[in-house]
């Protein structure tokens, strides 16, 4: 998992405040933590009491598992182990469209800059990407398209209802 010092969020490059935690280990570190679904489910009450907790999902984990917890979570991460695996695109849309999640949705791992525009349309607003990606350059790809035919996480009106 990446855990870069800098990330892209809402089109800006900012400092990364969230540390991804993959294994429960003995005790959780201080600060803002993005924990796995397994850790969340095992220690939910304690984590809610602790605060500053987000959850990241593997791309075979159903966001329905978090449906009851969304109020508690300021951020949800989605793991992209390889950029060709597009499951995360649908997971993001489910979070935004079906569960109306309003917090930060962050892509973690291996996506390439050429996917950012579509990922943004699917509702992902932050990117903690693999080291070899130049985020200064990548940020320019967020707006490769200024419009699309379909509805998406932020455009609820398809083009065919907007054509002038």
């Amino acid at each position: 998992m990446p855990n870069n010092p800098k990330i892209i969020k809402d089109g800006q490059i900012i400092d990364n405040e969230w540390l991804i935690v993959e294994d429960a280990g003995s005790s959780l570190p201080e600060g803002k933590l993005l924990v796995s679904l397994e850790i969340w489910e095992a220690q939910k009450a304690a984590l809610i009491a602790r605060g500053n907790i987000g959850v990241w999902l593997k791309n075979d984990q159903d966001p329905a598992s978090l449906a009851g917890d969304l109020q508690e979570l300021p951020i949800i991460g989605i793991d992209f182990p390889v950029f060709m695996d597009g499951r995360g695109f649908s997971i993001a849309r489910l979070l935004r469209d079906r569960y109306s999640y309003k917090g930060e949705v962050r892509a973690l791992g291996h996506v390439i800059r050429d996917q950012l525009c579509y990922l943004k349309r699917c509702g992902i607003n932050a990117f903690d990407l693999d080291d070899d990606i130049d985020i200064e350059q990548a940020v320019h790809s967020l707006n490769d398209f200024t419009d699309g035919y379909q509805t998406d996480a932020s455009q609820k009106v398809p083009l065919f209802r907007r054509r002038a």
Partner: protein
Amino acid sequence: MYQYDQYDHQIIRERIAQFRGQTERYLAGDLKAEEFLPLRLQNGLYVQRLAPMLRINVPYGMINSTQLRRLARITRDYDKGYAHVSTRQNFQLNWPDLADVPDILAELAEVEMHATQSSGNCIRNTTSDPFAGIAADEEIDPRPYCEVIRQWSSFHPEFAFLPRKFKIAVTGADHDRVATEVHDIGLRVIQNADDEVGFRVMVGGGLGRTPVIGSVICEFLPEKHLLTYLEAILRVYNLYGRRDNKYKARIKILVKAMGAEAFTEKVEAEWQFLKDTEATLTQEEIDRCKSFFTAPNYDVIDDEPAQARVEHLAGEHVAFQKWITRNLFPHKVSGYAAVVLSLKPTGVAPGDITDRQLDIIADLADKYSLGEARTTHDQNVVLADVKKDDLFALWEEAKAAGFATPNIGTLTDLICCPGGDFCSLANAKSIPIAEAIQRRFDDMDYVYDLGDIDLNISGCMNACGHHHIGSIGVLGVDKKGQEFYQVQLGGRSYENAAIGKVLGPAFSQADVPDVIATILNVFVENRQGDELFVDTYRRVGMAPFKERVYAK
């Protein structure tokens, strides 16, 4: 035909700018080959055995004369002066320079064409009936819905990295000329008892390594729900389709593994969240898309005398008589006919067409067929709106240009993928097999006597030549570095589609024409009346063919 508005133009311009940047980064070494790969594929660009290959979409097979002329110019300026019609109704260029592709795409965009998602693990070009809008057996013209799907599927942000490629076919006719049953999604536009228009939705058909006939998952989907329902199917596939093995990644494998019923439940459950959202089609949008496919102002022509004049000329010209027998398709409007221009003369790779011929088709379309043409799934070109009184003049011009081979639907009108001569996936060549068969069966009277036969040749398991659904299918296989050919019998692409069965051990290239000859002899001896090959096969089964072909 559909015409772009400012939105369509803007979206395609932005796409080309994006791909231009990607190509530049790749050429400068700033974009890794494995990361450029899906990006170039989704802009139509393969890297083949000898050179890149660019697959240009012809959305649902519709193309106009301006577009044909532009294609001709592109093949001249950027390629070697010829193109190839694929089984998905698209054009392929075999020799473009990678660095030129953004310019080619820009030239295409000027005439409202693109290569968007013509390959890659995404939703591909939607295919349709080449006789849409003019066939007498058609209930509803499928093209407006194809255009709706084209727009929805283009640059869909959620479905650009699917487990595998995804193909949709739409027909509105009783006779299925689009092989809907072997598509990831096959749609039949229908009208119910209350005169409402909708779709019968079939999912999970496909060819390739595991040929499957699709399952109907919805008997009647009202038209306004088309996009939300497709979205539900695609989302279920994107989330649950296998990604561990590319040969098990198509939706057909998912539908089989879950069972059609469980798959349907999953889609319906997903759809409940999408149904009746803003993404639901509006009547205005359906009407807007329909407005591009209204019937042209046909002349009022009395059919009988027109037909009599054609037959009179046929009596005087045997070649014309053969041509009207094989290469015409009945038009629903009196005094008109649809003409199939054959791209299957012996000695030319099936589906290949030169720049000069593209220009000539444009001229013929302007002169005789309201400026439009269609590409077909069996790699020919259709002029759909020809006055019967123009048929003789058209035939003479088509003959001079090499399009009038009177073999449509026959053994020599074979479907053939580019095969090992071009394709880096192929196990064996396919074009030389096609030519050897055409040369062996050059007696047209014999070929006519056989009746309609689909002979389909693929150079590998990926089945681009649709060998599974040919009456006779030929599949190139690799045996210890040698090219061999397996023969299958009994496939059928249209309604009640069937997957062919393997005859037996594969043959060497040299033996294939003799094997086909033997198969045809068995057919001729066993057929009853004017029975077609597929029907004789269904009646007598594989045994007599197998016995004779493998007799010592």
